[in-house]
């Protein structure tokens, strides 16, 4: 419990650091909300017009003053107003988040359901042809960018079979689960593809380590069936690196999967951040990055807690 409290107490500090970093970084990038809106036409503005726009976008004050105003707002639970959407930032983010969360969960399911059995299978057939096949497949999966996989899937389905999931209008899970799954399954497979390859590789090598441990040999010599040795005795101990990998990947996915969201036209967090950066919607960029950082910390914390559940020898917060 004290470990949990200690970890939670670092959250505000990290968030503060992240907020300063993103606040300054996005303003240091050349170009501002005015050039984002007007492009080269911004050159036609008179100084008075420029001033009026800077005031409208709230960028006419020194950065420190802007930050202070923003921070005061955050303490009141107000992340600011998005100039693109004309709505409070938190509202815009929370509208997009369910999709991103669902996509992350679905692609993790794809990854674990494919990657874990494949990894275990390969480890038990170490150096045989089938192991080699799995390893080659994993290598291809890991080294193929997901936008290539996505585009290939779209092309193959539309040109080869004349079919494609509905794009453009996203249906939330709770509104129409079937329609939603129809839209989400291909993006999840696309994202899960490379993720599954990583899981395969890491579970294979972890499994190989564990399978050569004494207790596994002991279990075998006691006559425990092979299947039971693998799935009941060895696998739980091989899971720690898989959990670490999945946690990190899942944390990344919660930040949105820009390319896959672009290709399948899904209104997720990744596209939201990308568009916000391109349009220099400062409040929205800050809000999104903060939100993503928070999610990442929560996921990391959960991963640590899962370690304890998997391996009782690990005692969190007691100096190893």
């Amino acid at each position, binding site marked *: 419990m004290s470990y949990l409290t200690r970890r939670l107490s670092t959250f505000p500090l990290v968030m503060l650091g992240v907020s300063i970093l993103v606040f300054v970084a996005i303003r240091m*990038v*050349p*170009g*501002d909300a005015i*050039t*984002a*809106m*007007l*492009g*080269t036409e911004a*050159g*036609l*503005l*008179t100084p*008075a*017009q*420029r001033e*009026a*726009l800077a005031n*409208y976008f709230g960028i006419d004050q020194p950065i420190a003053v802007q930050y202070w105003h923003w921070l005061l707002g955050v303490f009141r639970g107000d992340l600011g107003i998005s100039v*693109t959407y*004309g709505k409070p930032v938190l509202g815009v983010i929370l509208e997009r988040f369910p999709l991103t969360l669902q996509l992350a969960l679905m692609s993790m399911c794809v990854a674990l*359901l*494919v990657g874990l*059995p494949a990894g*275990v299978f390969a480890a038990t057939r170490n150096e045989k042809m089938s192991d080699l096949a799995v390893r080659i497949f994993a290598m291809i999966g890991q080294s193929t960018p997901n936008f290539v996989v996505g*585009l290939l899937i*779209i*092309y193959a*389905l*539309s*040109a080869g079979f*004349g*079919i*494609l*999931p*509905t*794009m*453009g*209008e*996203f249906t939330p899970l709770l509104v129409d689960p*079937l*329609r939603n*799954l*129809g*839209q989400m*399954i291909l993006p999840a*497979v696309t994202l899960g593809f490379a993720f599954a390859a990583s899981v395969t590789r890491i579970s294979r090598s972890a499994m190989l380590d564990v399978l050569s441990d004494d207790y596994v040999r002991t279990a075998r010599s006691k006559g425990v069936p092979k*299947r039971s040795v693998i*799935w009941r005795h060895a696998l739980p101990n091989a899971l720690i690196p898989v959990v670490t990998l999945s946690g990190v990947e899942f944390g990344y996915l919660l930040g949105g999967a820009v390319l896959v969201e*672009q*290709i*399948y*036209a899904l209104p997720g967090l990744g*596209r*939201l951040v990308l*568009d916000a950066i*391109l*349009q*220099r919607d400062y409040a929205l960029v800050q809000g999104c990055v903060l939100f993503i950082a928070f999610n990442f910390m929560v996921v990391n914390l959960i991963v640590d807690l899962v370690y304890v559940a998997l391996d009782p020898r690990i005692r969190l917060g007691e100096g190893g």
Partner: protein
Amino acid sequence: MGRHFSTRLISGLAFAATLGVSFVTSPASAATLRMAWSQDATGLDPHKQTAFSSIRLLELIYEPLVRLDKDLKIVPAIASSWEFSDGGKQLTFKLNPNAKFQDGKPVTPADVKASFERVLDEKTAAAARANFRSIASIETPDQTTVVFKLSQPDVPLLTAMASINAAIVPASEIAAGSVGTKALGSGPFKLEKWDPNSKEVLTANKDWAGGKVGVDGIDISVLPDETAILASLRTKQIDFALLNDPLVATLVPKETNLTLNRTPVLAYHVLQLNASRKPMNELVVRQAISCAIDRQDVLDTASVGEGKVTGPLTAPGYTTDASQLFCYKRDVEKAKKLMADAGYADGFSATVIAANGEPATAASEAQVIQSQLAEIGVKLDIKMMELNVYVDAWLKGDFDMAVALNGGRADPYSMYNRYWTKAGNLQKVANYIDDTLDSQMQKGREETDPAKRKAIFANFEKHLVEMSPWVWLYTSYSYTAQQKNVQGFVPTPEGSLFGLSKVTVQQ
């Protein structure tokens, strides 16, 4: 167990995929046009938005006083007639008495006056204000007449007024400060819903003074990836799409159920030289660069030949025979000699900036130019930038050379006065001006006779190309793709989608 599990997984995926597929075939109501584009509007204020992607949406909702047709002729919109008087210093409009805003209220001269005053008010921060500076006062003598009094003869003003940046909005909305948050115009479509970067829903305006709208409405989806747009067209999920990437557009004719509309546009691809920097400050060096570039090769390689080599004038009615312009036939020997004359026989190094994806061909153009200039010893370092970063550097004139796609206008004066007049707002970007360019532009502004105007701008063009502050390359096409049962769309050289007001979808 592993194998058993995989079988279940595969059948699960197959089931889920069938779910996805089962939704594909449900067609939307035939009278609603399902449309897609890759870049969404960035705002709803017609006076402030300058991005193509915003204008394409706003011109379906709002209307200016006049409009440009497919031949760039000025035709009625809210105004039914107009005339210049007082030696080009007065412009009088008669409004269409049937013109109504989408809330049913008539469009009055007071709305016109309030709209232009809003554009001219510096607090509005409308970039288009620069085109309307000659308006001294606006009078509304009766219920259908608006009179613009001008401080100087300004013939291009009428063409500038055909822009959606001069749209007429209700005076009451201006007073309430709600222009931009609420889209209330007099155009063919009403905006029912806008989810930025995702979706727009438009319904036909039954009261539109321009006649009956051909469809009940338009559902626009934002599909950021254009190959996904093509896939959606292929599977009949959408009826009509706007495409930017020539590489995607050229695949459309291969699909039997699709039609590609390909229209030359006014925007031009150009290599901008910064004549305030050494050695581009020397005329012969700029001319050497111009002579060393094979414009057709840039077009063929970077843009799969989709376009036409152009001089500075791109509007039909003003274009001249590009092959007659200075060094439009590549001449490497001449270029080398010019370089040697300037004392740069061994060449020099420079940086060229270009924006990522804007246009889609920017990086390829820079690469072709890099290899062509290498032949005369110019070592180009290509710097690709995010669009906004590029715009920032461009506006500051902070580059040696820049690959650019600059917007065109129907009138050469409106198109170039920002760059090639002494008081031009973008002189800092153009970085070159001389008396001939300035005086030709001023003559063009005042001249009302079309044939004389054409001759003035032809002289302007010839001189500009010889001075080579920039190297004009080519104009490209705007592309829309549609299903065979979509009929009646008329594209324009401005890339306008206003033609959607007369489109019908056959059952």
